[in-house]
């Protein structure tokens, strides 16, 4: 099993609903977030392109944050989901420094927090909160080992890019372009 997410940048409108839904679902304190929107404009008026990307932890197959964690709080679970065990985390911040995507934040309660792919929902047969809420249906989540999953099919049908592949992290977010 290999969980991954595809994000259709052709449909995303950058509304941040995925951010709000995640904050509420996961009780992320106000002022922090586990997912966020990046907007990039290129060209000059009127020859322009605009891209919105809903970003979060890439659940890297080769995760520096896990390797550098001194306590084993950061670890990889079934399906390749990178998680932090809050009780084990001492808040040293080594993982924050090692993440090329700036995907982690220090939770005010003293541990490091990040996207979990809403694994608590996924295990119940639901989808991550961001995927469930997205009004443009531009997020696809599922198992890459299953060729019929939404995410496998999208990656097969469409062109995509992954971010900062040069960092060698083998990121598992696929941005459809």
């Amino acid at each position, binding site marked *: 099993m290999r969980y991954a997410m595809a994000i259709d940048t052709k449909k995303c409108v950058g*509304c941040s609903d995925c951010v709000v839904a995640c904050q*509420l*679902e996961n009780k992320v304190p106000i002022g922090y977030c586990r997912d966020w929107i990046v907007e990039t404009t290129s060209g000059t*008026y009127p020859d322009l392109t605009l891209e919105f990307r809903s970003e979060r932890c890439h659940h890297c197959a080769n995760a520096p944050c896990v390797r550098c964690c001194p306590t084993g709080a950061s670890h990889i679970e079934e399906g390749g989901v990178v998680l932090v065990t809050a009780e084990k985390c001492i808040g040293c911040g080594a993982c924050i420094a090692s993440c090329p995507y700036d995907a982690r934040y220090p939770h005010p309660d003293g541990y490091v927090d990040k996207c979990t792919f809403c694994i608590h929902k996924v295990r119940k047969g639901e989808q991550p909160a961001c995927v469930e809420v997205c*009004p443009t249906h531009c997020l696809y989540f599922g198992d890459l080992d299953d060729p019929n999953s939404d995410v496998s099919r999208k990656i097969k049908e469409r062109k995509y890019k992954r971010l900062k592949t040069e960092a060698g992290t083998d990121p598992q977010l696929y941005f459809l372009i």
Partner: protein
Amino acid sequence: MKTNRREFIKISGTAVGAAAIGASTLTGSLFNWASGSILNQSVPAPTFLERTPTYCEICFWKCAGWVTKNEDGEIWKIEGHKDDPHCNGRLCPRGTGGVGMYYDEDRLKQPLIRVEENGKQVFKEASWEEAFKVIGNKMKAIKEKYGPECMALFTHGSGGKFLGHMLKAYGSPHITAPSFAQCRGPREVAFYSTFGEGVLSPERTDIRDTRCLVLIGSHIGENMHNGQVQEMSEAIDKGATIITVDPRFSTAASKSKFWLPIKPSTDMALLLAWINVIITEEWYDKPYVEKYTFGFDQLTTHIQTYTPEWAYGITSIEPKTIRETAREMANAAPAVIIHPGRHVTWYGDDTQRLRAVAILNALLGSWGRRGGFYFPDKVSVPDFPHPPYPEPKKTWRDLMPGKYNLATEIVSNGICDATIPSPEAACNFKGWIVNGTNLIHTLPDQKKTLAAIEALELLVVIDTMPMEITGYADVILPECTYLERYDAIRNSPHREPVISLRMPATEPKYNSKPDWWIAKELGKELGLDAYFQYKDIEEVLDWELKQIGSSLAEMQKIGVKKFNREYDDLYLIDGQDFEFNTNTGKIELYSTEMANNGFDPMPVYTPHEQPPAGFYRLNYGRAPAHTFSRTSNNPNLVDIMPENELWVNPKVAKQWGIKNGQYVWLKNQDEIISSFSIKVRITERIRWDSVYMAHGFGHSNKKLTRAFGKGASDTELISNVKIDPIMGGTGMRSNFVTLLTKLPEKAASETEKTVES
């Protein structure tokens, strides 16, 4: 500063310790308001369900959803209802963040009454009984002295139904919503006069099945009108062509096959040129036009001179592009939508511009066709029985004779104008009840709004938040949020009839109350008991639901219920005979209604004012995370977007030597300077002749602790208002601003005063 009879009062600690009878007797007893009497506490608290149905109140789209609580029994999250066609199980960011409206600690908490103390006006905390007494006495006096018609209700949202009922029972028909003349009115009037029916809300646009969607200044994706955003995304998936006309590279423009970066204020020229091409090239739907329309020959003659070459000089859109996009539309027809937009009060000839939109749709045969505009349906829910309302002796039309003849709803700014005393006026409005609309930020030309308020004998504000309008009130009533109350059944037109229930997920916080209760109690105070012959709202809802084969108990469980259409008439069937609700029974390309009222029967192009040197047209719009004032202090949504920014083209920024992220003040053509500065966002996404900002920021009431002073208010800079003579709409896009990198001293002291006073 001159002392007004009605000074702006900050709701603050100066309010003296009140005999808060309501508060003290009510604490600890859940839902005692459900008993229908403030003093009766014998009703037991209802047991709460695991998740409770609601429909969203953050915008008019009213998506149905479920409220879920956490293990501590507190509201945790709201999610969309899967069976609801308004949202298909997905709320927009504002709806998802709706919980913040409930948790906002700046909410109004207690009724407040304006009193004079040591020569200073202050708000005193009061019980609900006291507040109702004050309002009741004033309303009775107004009725006696001037007639009940001199009371008006401004409303936006679900509470309007109950308060409106109370006002009609009292004897006034004057219930008005700024959503007409400050927003979508022109399109409704234009479509009525063309097709005999309006566009309605939610819009009857069949976007999910369209093959070509044309957006003119309509920024779907930044306006999160949920169903439309979802359907546009679906249309993109299915390969539909999107054509966006906007001087700004909007989100929608970035998703479009064609973006037409039009010169602001010239849309009418483009529309007329499109009509010209479609007629000249014979790309229109001939059988449809022949069977259903009236005035094709007149239209053909009328548009002869409106060629793409003519339009080029006006719009800066090349003739080639005009023809190519017209061809795209014709290829897709009848599955094409020239979208009527929603906020369309721009230049004062807006009804005519929307007539051009309607005509274009008619020529392409998209009205009543799959992928165009469908015929919506809804159930008819009878109202809970009550005695007939008293016949009003005068209506707003008598108060403004000969004006806005084709308005289909009451014109808010007309009521505002008719409140300012003038020698000609037969009657002026003497009392306003304002519910869920912050008129200070809603009506343009703030000077006028304030002059009207100054003339009032009674101003009651019913809101959840200390909006600016509350500072001018005589009485402020704290309503509870939608998550804490029942409301009327949501029953809106859609592809299939569908209803939805809102029920409280929890008891009201503080001493706030639902509007149905406020209306009922105030009604009793006014001696209108006969109109409120029910114990509580549950009785009303259950009775109404039983008339249509459901019940309150059922709706509490399912939240949303769909019904079958009475007839299979979502679209016209090919060649079907159809009588349109117009004078001629046809789709009127030539409008007899307009002609009869002395207006152009077919739209003509009129040039609009252009910015003077050094000034830029002030354009404004929506941001996905906010619904104007309503969300500007919401903790969850402020977290996403705390302030608005001023979009400035890099060339303009260079000229002014301003940097990205720098704060500037704005001065308009009438020397009005923004109360607050606004952060500059330098972006290629905007033309050099205009600037852009999201509407709804720049709040001056310090009680809005998160919204206060954040960003600038476009409304205060809109002083040049172009009234649409057809229906009274307030055209707001003829205002021009220049940038101030420093605040002039005089302005600084005045700003300070506005904020402080």
